[in-house]
Structures are given as C-alpha cells and as structure tokens.
C-alpha cells in the first residue's frame, strides 16, 4: 500500500512531469492542426480534425537539412568516440613522459566556448577547402568532441584493473593488441555514454552550422530556424518541423537509454 509520504511524492512528480511534458504536447497538437485551427485555438487543446499536412510540408522543407545533419552527426560521433577511446586508453594505461601534461592541455579544450573560435574556424576551414561542406562539419565536430570523449574514456579506462593489462602483456600482447582485443570490447558502456552525449550535442548544434554552411549544406537546426522567417508565421509547420527535428535524439535515447543508465552506474568492469 502507498503511505502518505510516497503518495505526496508521486503527486508532486506527476505534476512536475505534466509541466515538463506540456511544451512537447503543445508541439504535437499544433503540428497536427490546420492553418485555420492554429489561429482559432490555444496550443494545448487537441486538434479537432488532425491533419498530416504540416508534418509533410515541414519534412519537405527540411529534408536536405535532416540528411546533412544525420550524415555529419553520425560520422562525427563515430570518429570522435573512436579517437577519444584511443586517446583515453593511451593516457590512462600506456602512459608516456608528460602524458599528464598532454591530458591537461587536452582537457582545456572542453572549456573553450564555441563563440571564441568562430572567426579562426571560418578562416581555417576556408583555407583547408572544407568551408560549407558536410566534410567540414564532420571534421569540426569531431575535433571539437575529442577532448570530452578523451575525458570520458580516460575515466573509464582508469577503472580497468591494471592486472588485466599486465596479464595481457605477459601473455604476449602488444599495446595495440591489448587495445583491440581487450580494452575496445570492454569499453562498450563508455561508447554508449560518449555516443549518446556526442550525438545529442552535435545534432543540437546551431552555431557552427549557421556560420560554416550555406544553402543546401545547412544542417537541420539552421533550416528549422529559417522556417520562421519566410512568410507569415506558420506555427503548425514550425511545430511539425520541431517535432521532426527532435525525433532522432528521442530515438537514440529510447534505444540506448537502458544501457546509458547502466553505463553511468558501472564504472568498473563486472567480471
């Protein structure tokens, strides 16, 4: 039976959940309304006559942006996680002279605000010939993600018992073999955490997208923002766009959520 305190707790949590979900609900209801109904009703009222038109229209407008975003987000997530994993392994387990200094210098990268590097970034990407391209976005986001990915993986590998590595060394494995056959397969929880984190932050990025790309190379986040300015405010189309834009991140969470929590909790490797 529920006692009084837990009943109160549930009540408060339910109200809070309701408050948090309200905007999302409004997005959904508005996205399913016709132009007329949007103007006549308030957002939280469900549509009387649901229509798919706004969703289809928004998708049509954002198609290219979504493909762009999906491409560079996936690749940048993959590359930054892989590089972070190798870095983390070397900084945690192989070590070399001044490896602590290298790690410290790398960690500083986490705290550099996006805005501080915009102008140099434009110069560098133009000179490298990757300005306004998916490749450019992939490279920039991979690079920007390396410090945080390295940190995640270093923390993870710090928990890996030294004796396992020593055992492997005595068994005849080189550092590369140890990484590939032992560290890499054992680090899947770290890959999930880093992967979800990177996917979300790269997908949600607006600033790099808006300054480094133009026209058909723009990411979904920028295209979404541009939906606003065109003609009169089509709230239903915009909300539909917002809904579509949020889907991949939600999907990633639903798919990997249970591993994510397990990954957060298990610092150590379970035998």
């Amino acid at each position: 039976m529920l006692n009084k305190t837990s009943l109160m707790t549930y009540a408060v949590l339910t109200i809070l959940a309701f408050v948090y979900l309200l905007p999302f609900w409004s997005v959904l209801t508005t996205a399913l309304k016709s132009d007329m109904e949007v103007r006549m009703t308030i957002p939280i009222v469900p549509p009387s006559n649901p229509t798919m038109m706004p969703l289809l229209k928004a998708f049509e407008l954002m198609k290219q942006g979504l493909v762009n975003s999906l491409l560079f987000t996936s690749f940048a997530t993959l590359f930054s996680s892989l590089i972070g994993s190798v870095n983390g392994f070397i900084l945690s387990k192989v070590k070399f002279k001044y490896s602590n200094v290298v790690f410290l210098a790398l960690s500083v990268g986490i705290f550099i605000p996006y805005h501080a590097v915009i102008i140099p970034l434009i110069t560098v990407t133009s000179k490298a010939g990757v300005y306004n391209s998916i490749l450019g976005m992939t490279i920039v986001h991979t690079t920007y993600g390396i410090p945080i990915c390295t940190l995640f993986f270093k923390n993870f590998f710090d928990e890996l018992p030294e004796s396992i590595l020593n055992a492997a060394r005595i068994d005849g494995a080189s550092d590369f073999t140890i990484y590939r056959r032992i560290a890499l397969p054992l680090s899947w929880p770290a890959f999930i955490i880093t992967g979800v984190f990177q996917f979300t932050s790269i997908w949600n990025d607006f600033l790099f997208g808006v300054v480094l790309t133009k026209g058909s190379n723009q990411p979904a986040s920028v295209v979404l923002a541009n939906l606003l300015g065109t003609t009169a405010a089509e709230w239903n189309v915009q909300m539909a766009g917002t809904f579509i834009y949020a889907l991949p991140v939600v999907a990633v969470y639903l798919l990997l959520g249970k591993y994510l929590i397990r990954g957060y909790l298990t610092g150590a490797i379970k035998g």
Partner: protein
Amino acid sequence: MVNVCIKDLCKKFGKTEAVKDFNLEIKSGEFFVLLGPSGSGKSTVLNCIAGVIKPTKGEIWIGDKLVVSAEKGVFIPPQERNLGMVFQDFALYPHMSVFDNITFPLKVRKFPENEVRMRAEQIAEILGIKHLLNRKPGQLSGGEKQRVGLARALIRNPPLLLMDEPLSNLDAKLRVMMRVELKRIQREFKTTVVYVTHDQVEALSMGDRIGIMSAGTLQQVGEPIEIYEKPINTFVAGFIGSPPMNMFNCTLTDLERGVLKCDFGEYILPKSVAEVIFMKAVKELILGVRPEHVKIVSKHMPGALEAKFIYVEKLGRELIAHLKIGESKITSIISPEVHSSLKETVWILFDENKIHVFDKSSGQTIV
C-alpha cells in the same frame, strides 16, 4: 626450468623506496616463496621479474638471459620474457569465454588452430576445468577462476611461473585444497615458481625455500624449517609462527652466571648460551621462546616461574594458553589433557635448548 638471479635491485616510487639492495638467487626448478607483510615490497620484486615494473637500479637474469639492467639500459618487455603469471584478482578477460581466456597467449603468438585446441583441452583436463570452457568468467566461482588463471599461465608451458598471492581471494577450505594442488602442478610441469604471499602457513607448507621481506629488504632466505628454528632477527622470529614467538626485553645482570633480569623476573640462561653471550659482551637483550617450548607444570620446580591463566583459546586438538608472568604476558601451546589437570596458578618452564636470544639494539640473533 630456469633459474632467476636478482642483483642489487632497487625500486623507488617517487620518494618511497619499495625495494632496496635486493639480492637473490632462485634455483632452477625450485618453489620459492617471497613472504612478508603487506607493503614489504615483495610484489614489487615479482613485478620487476615479470617486467611490468622497471627497477630503479640493479639487474635481473632469467636463466642466462639478462632481462633488465638499469645500469646497462637493458629492458626486455614482459611479452618476450617467456613466463607465466597468476594474479590475486585472477585478472581474467571478462568478455572472453574460458576457452578464449586460456588460449589467449597462444592466439596472440599465432599458434596454429589445431594446436591451440589440443593444448587447451590438455591443460583444461589437468586443471579440471574442461566442463567450463564455454563459460564466461562472471559465471565462475573463485576457485574456478583461479584454475582458469593458472591454465592461462601454464598453457605455454613456461619455464618460470610467477604467482602473486594467488590464494588470497579464496575461502579457507579451498585454499588448503589449492595449496596441495599447486605443488602437484609445479611438479608436473617442472617449472620454477616464484610465489608471493603474506600467509606464513602457505610459505611454510609450500616453499622449498622462503625469502622473508620487510620494509623493502630481504631479511632471511632459507628452507622453511631453518627459518622457523633459526630466525636471523626479531622480525623473522615474530613474523613466522602462529601464535608468534614470546619475546621479552632483558638486561644481563650477571655475566658469569648468565643471569637475565627480565620484565617478568629473573631468568638464568643455560650454560652454553651464557658462554656465547659472554663472548659477545652484549648487555641489552631480547629473550625469545616459542609457545610450544613453554611448558606448564602444576607444581613449583627449580627454575620455574609462577604464572596465572588469563584466557585459553580452545582450538580442538590443542589449546593456546595466555598467561601472565609478573607484568608480562606469555602464550603456551598445551594439550587439552594437561589443561584439565591445572589450577589457576601454575609454573612454567622454558625448553632450554630452544630459546632464542637477540641483541636488542640491532635485533640480530646471538644464539
């Protein structure tokens, strides 16, 4: 089988000296035990032999191969040292099956598939883990994990096997079983073993020879019986033996007759002992006597000291009596039959041939 020779080994971690001036020759085919309390540097020595730690000074030879020398700048990595190692925490690869774990050393070295399979089955048979080959380490008990660890270390049939507290994570009953098992395996594989432990029972029961370490230095090397009967200093005397040796601070008051003034009263040394001490002319001494050499009698006898029972530990086959003599405490091992015949106040006698006398200032043995 191969011998190991360690010369002037030193290892510093920052400012702390984990091992200093360590010299040791481990004979070919020997079961050598490095014994010492935690933090005495015994694992550091083992890790230097394995090659997972680089010594600060000194050199190590495995057979006729110089594997490391700080002075000559030689360092052969663990991958090329041709040895096996068993770890306290087993150090199995958690994502691999038992089969993959034990064959890892062969697969890394690119042995042909059929030989890998054959050797795995052979070693699994010897260690009784054939039925576990498809399991993951997470599904094994402590004892099973240790067998897998052992199988992995032995699969290449290395001439040198290092073991770092391999039995510490097992429960008491299993430990006794594995002690016998490890000796059998060592004989079967004819390999030189260097075994690190803090458990003196393991050391005494398994070791062909024992090296006792304290604070980074090797105190004494010898056969178990030699170390037990002739401890070189107070540390070894106190560390080996359970319950530990009784030790008393004494002052020599009468050189000629060998009269000691101890915390508990006067004690007259046997003539042979007194003569040696007379020669050395040391006055401040420590008198040591093992609990099994403390005899309890019910009546006063010449030379006997009066004592009172404080507490008796009943261990079944024997009893450990804790007694008080004067202001000091003393332990004695007695049989249950003797105990039942005694009253609260008793007299104790030391076995004169079995007493130890140490120089108090240096801790070194005199007799």
